[in-house]
């Protein structure tokens, strides 16, 4: 849970219709719901209960009520008594508590924090097992309830741009929005005119405070974009293929013409990594401290930035890799290929985990949703497809007139797609069929980099003519987790976070398609496990050592002698085996005999009840 919650701005604006030239005040009125309080809900419920008593109205079942309805009558009475006692208890001031008991948690919020279903209790259990299960259930229930209760601390809600009747939100220009919103928000729409070294790739840091832009012709700059403070600006004098922030804003990686370079925020070159050549695209896995690179030589490589070692290099054997994205939920790398397939990779397997055929033409861009549920792809066949990446099933397919060259998904699930110099933003591409974009904007050159800023309603667009920061209401997550990514953190806090993050670093071995797999019992057979062991050790620990006869002098190591000795040993071994087998056989035989004897004995014994037998 986040410990600190800052007010985060949201836009819920109603835009003026196109025929109105001026923007009136009423259009920009901020619709803000008052924060909900639990007693209000209580009140509502009470009202609803009354309604239900009158014979109408469906009330939402709360947990306590559900519990009550489940429990037998006796318990109910007891519970009531307890509650009465509570009510009788008065404060020193002599007034009774108007809201006795614990605050109720709405069912939907509880559902949000549910982790798997409870298991059914088998009829008979060992008492130890029973207590253990009961305790674990209790703990997980408590965790769930507490989390649901603390969800109250995430009060901010995101809003969207709402058009008037008959007005398309996609026709609202950025200037209008920037003028309508407050000054600080309006200042977030800006344009950097850098026409000389474009087109630009961009990347926002994890907290959303810092922006990194890298021009194709070698211009690299990092900017604290909110204060417009230029942290560093260099020209690497080489073509730049991609740029990426590493774990914090103090370091970034630049994929240059030949090698991969790491610079610090002052523009000082820290490393030139010769093992990573011809890198085209990069992805950084923040919780694993892994920098995944895809090269034109079809190599997918992982660099552990915490220790500076290459974890693995996988030859994907699929040609040039210039389409790449990561699944933020399970740290799986998705690669798009010219033959229309998308492959999923983990550092633990030399072959693709999954290979999906997505497009008839080449895949041009990929994006995976924050929760790891949906994947959006665009291809040369000018289609935009949405997949359920958990089941690998296509959900929606759209036809974009010119195809999308760049895709990006925001934290709240807005999709931005760039076609040529037009940047379009779509809402809810997976659930409802979309016919027109939510927003559209024309930039001054072909778009090359597209990225939503985390925790801000901002979309960064890198293009031929520089960089444009767009305002996209409803894009960013309004509540941030200050322990994870705090946009307002100080240098000290950053240092502490860094130490903590390093301590909590997830090892690359744990990357798998299903992140919950770690909590499962390994059901592999002994053979499989043994295979794994052999693979890990490089030899078979259970294998019998081959007999190598000792060299003896005086002609005793002649070929015949050696062969003889070998035979002797082999025979001895075989005898052992045979002896063992015989012993086993004898034992089983004995057992069988014993059994039979017992049976006969049982049969011979006359029971008192035998006379009733027919």
């Amino acid at each position: 849970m986040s410990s600190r919650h800052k007010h985060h701005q949201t836009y819920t604006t109603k835009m003026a219709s196109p025929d109105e030239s001026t923007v009136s005040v009423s259009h920009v009125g901020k619709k803000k719901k008052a924060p909900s309080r639990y007693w209000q809900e209580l009140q509502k419920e009470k009202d609803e209960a009354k309604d239900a008593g009158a014979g109408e109205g469906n009330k939402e079942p709360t947990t306590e009520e559900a519990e009550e309805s489940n429990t037998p009558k006796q318990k109910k009475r007891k519970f009531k008594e307890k509650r009465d006692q509570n009510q009788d208890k008065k404060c020193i001031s002599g007034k009774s508590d108007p809201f006795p008991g614990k605050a109720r948690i709405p069912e939907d919020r509880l559902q949000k924090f549910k982790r798997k279903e409870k298991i059914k209790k088998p009829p008979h259990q060992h008492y130890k097992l029973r207590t253990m299960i009961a305790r674990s259930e209790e703990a997980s229930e408590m965790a769930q309830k507490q989390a649901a209760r603390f969800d109250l601390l995430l009060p901010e809600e995101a809003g969207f741009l709402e058009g008037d009747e008959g007005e398309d939100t996609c026709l609202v220009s950025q200037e209008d929005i920037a003028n309508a919103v407050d000054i600080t928000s309006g200042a977030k729409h800006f344009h950097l005119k850098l026409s000389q070294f474009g087109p630009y790739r961009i990347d926002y840091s994890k907290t959303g405070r810092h922006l990194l832009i890298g021009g194709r012709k070698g211009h690299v700059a990092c900017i604290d974009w909110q204060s417009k403070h230029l942290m560093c600006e260099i020209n690497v004098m080489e073509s730049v293929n991609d740029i990426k922030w590493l774990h914090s804003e103090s370091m970034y990686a630049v994929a240059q013409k030949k090698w991969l370079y790491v610079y610090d925020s002052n523009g000082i070159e820290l490393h030139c990594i010769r093992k990573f050549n011809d890198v085209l695209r990069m992805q950084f896995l923040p919780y694993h401290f892994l920098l995944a690179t895809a090269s034109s030589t079809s190599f997918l490589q992982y660099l552990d930035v915490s220790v500076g070692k290459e974890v693995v290099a996988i030859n994907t054997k699929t040609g040039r890799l210039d389409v790449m994205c990561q699944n933020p939920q399970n740290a799986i790398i998705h690669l798009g290929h010219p033959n229309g397939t998308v492959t999923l990779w983990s550092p633990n397997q030399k072959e693709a985990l999954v290979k999906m055929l997505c497009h008839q033409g080449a895949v041009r861009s990929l994006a995976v949703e924050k929760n790891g549920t949906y994947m959006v792809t665009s291809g040369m066949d000018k289609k935009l497809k949405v997949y359920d990446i958990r089941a690998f099933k296509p959900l929606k397919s759209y036809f974009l007139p010119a195809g999308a060259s760049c895709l990006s998904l925001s934290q709240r699930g807005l999709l931005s797609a760039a076609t040529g110099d037009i940047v379009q933003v779509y809402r809810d591409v997976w659930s409802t069929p979309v016919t027109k974009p939510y927003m559209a904007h024309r930039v001054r050159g072909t778009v090359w980099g597209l990225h939503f800023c985390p925790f801000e309603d901002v979309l960064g667009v890198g293009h031929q003519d520089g960089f444009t920061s767009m305002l996209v209401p409803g894009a960013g997550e309004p509540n941030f987790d200050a322990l994870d990514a705090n946009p307002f953190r100080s240098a000290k806090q950053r240092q502490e976070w860094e130490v903590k993050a390093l301590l909590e670093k997830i090892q690359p071995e744990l990357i798998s398609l299903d992140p919950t797999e770690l909590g499962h019992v390994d059901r592999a057979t002994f053979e499989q496990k043994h295979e794994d062991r052999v693979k890990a050790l490089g030899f078979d620990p259970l294998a019998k050592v081959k007999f190598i006869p000792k060299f003896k002098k005086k002609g005793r190591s002649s070929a015949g002698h050696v062969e003889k000795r070998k035979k002797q040993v082999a025979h001895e071994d075989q005898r052992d085996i045979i002896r063992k087998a015989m012993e086993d056989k004898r034992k089983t035989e004995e057992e069988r005999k014993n059994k039979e004897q017992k049976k006969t004995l049982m049969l011979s014994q006359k029971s008192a009840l035998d006379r009733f037998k027919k």
Partner: protein
Amino acid sequence: MESEDPEMEREDAENEREDAENEREDAENEREDEEDERRRLKLVEAITALRGGRKKPLGERSEAAVRVSEFAVTAEGERQKVQLSDLIEGAQQSPAVPTQTRKQLQNLRRSQKTVEQPLSRQESERVQRDLAFQKAAVHVSRWKSVVTQNRRSEQLVFPLNQEPSGPKPLEKVVTGWRVQTPLEQEVFNLLSANKQPIHNPVLSPAEEASLRAMSLEEAQIRRAELQKARALQSYYEAKARRERKIKSKKYHRVQNKARRKEFLKQFDQMVKTDPNGALEELNKMELARMKERMSLKHQNSGKWARSKAIMAKYDEGARRAMQQQLELNKDLTQKVRSSLSNQEEQEDGASDPELLPDFVNDAEPGQVSSNPWMRGELSAEPADAQRSEQEVAAPAAEKEQHEEEEEKEADEEQALLRDFEGRRKLRQKEEEAPGQDVEDSDEEEGPADQDQEEEGLSEFRSLFRGVAEGLKEAAAASTAGCSSAPLEGGLIRIRTVEDAELLPPEDVELLPCSESPPSAPQEEAPPTGQKARGSKKRKRNIELKEVLTKDAKTVTVPLAPTLTDTADGSDEELDQRGLIMEAFAGDDVIADFLRDKRKQEDAAKPKVVDLTLPGWGEWGGQGLKPSSRKRRRFRVKVAPAEPRKDQRLPGVIISEQRNGSLSAHQVSALPFPYENHAQFESAVRTPLGRTWNTERTVKKLTMPKVLTQLGTIIQPMTEEELARKKASAAGAGKEDPHKTKDQKRRARKGRHSQKI
């Protein structure tokens, strides 16, 4: 028998003699008998000795005794035992024995039972041990419930009966408190006499009534008052804190002076109103003065002063500092002169003129004010001297003048203070002002600033200087034109005829369509997709084309792209082959993929091993095949593979490889009490860490099994504790909290069955 009397006498005598003789004879006889007996015994002994018997004969009492003890009964015959019957017989006949006893004796005679032999030592010890064990077992078994409970409990806290830490509720403290001292007892008596609450209610009835009596308005007023008082206090405190922090010496000097003066004034007033208090104050002052005189402070005798003294010749500042020290000393050691002290002095002087007051040793400023040497001043400037004169309480004659001067001085001081205040305020204003100014300027210069920043961004301070200059010029000169930049020309790919040919024809078709946004979608999705759905189920080779060309919704974009996509084209390194492949994509993509999938499936299938050796058991050679019977016989059949994960997903190949690296971190075997995987997996489904849980949950989840308090002695559980526990359990009528529903149900069932 001869004569009567004498005869009688004689006879008597004779009789007597005879008697005596008889007796003698008897005795003799007896003696003979005894002799015989002894002889006989000796004989017997001899005979027995001859026989060699080792047994000692029973000793026999043989002394003559008048009375024979009934306890020492001897049998009649030799070596005969005393029989009970012999004894009883005697009892039977004697009438002294009651009939009841007689009956009992008869019964005893009739019963033939013999009394059992007593147990051997070992056996008796064993019996005792057994008994002791049983007792101990019963004793120990009383603890059984506690032990099981402790074993099963989630957490144990030691020491056992510790007071809960933290603040207790007031009610508990009040009720739990006992009267201990006699004073307390008295107080309690008083309280109880006045019907004050002693125990349970925290508020007395009167207090409650008063609480109720206070109206809302009153309460509000009261609250406001309190608020105001608090605020004032806080202001005062803040002010004091601020003033204390001021470092200016001058300020403090002035302040001190003002304070002193104020104090003197107050003191004078006090003399009139509260002489006792004044006297006390005076004493205090005197004490302070004494202390000052005793110490070496401000005497210019320290290290610092010595160092200053060296410098004093040349340095004005050092001189002044030393002067100041001395002045301070003088001030502090000066006698306080007030009307009261004057009076006292006078009185003192009057009462005992011989006794000299101790201040005679002091430099007396009032008397020899004109002589600076006498006042202990080293080198006072005339002006300084004057001032010091002014400070000193002056004689009455000069009083008016002094007062005037003092007033003047006070004015000066006030002015100084005011000056300080004013300066401070000014500073505060200045501090506030720039912020506002900056904000204002920000607001005004917002866009301009941006422009500047953009300019700044476009300026390169890096290596590329020449180009940067050119860029600057360009940025300055051209506002809209971006195409004029000389470097850009190469980046935009100009479409050649060949390229257009390479691209699929629909691209060309669709370009105009995209330019007219409201137009209906031209390209309808092929309808085959929906048709094929029904038959898809059982087909093995699903037509992937159908899956791929799913119903595609056309999206209309209001803005038409004016630039062609150069992103891909700008990659100079993109080889021609790839380009062509991209262009002709869709032709054999699906077939390729299906082939790939089939290959994978086949590779994963378990292979049948044929172990037939041609030529064994039959003729072999060229052109001869082993018989089909034999081949069937030697073919090792393998169990069919599990269904593939991508069985029902035509467009997906899922790798069936096992993730060995992860399995190293997984639980490999089901832990003890769990009976199946699902149970264990559900038990570990909730993460424990702080990243996923609230603080309270983490505490609960990672609770230690045993909790001990540092530095305390953990005593073993006493019997009383046990008894208390049991009593509390019985009193509550509650069952064991650890008992689960099942147990309860079982218990209920048991009861039920008993009834039946």
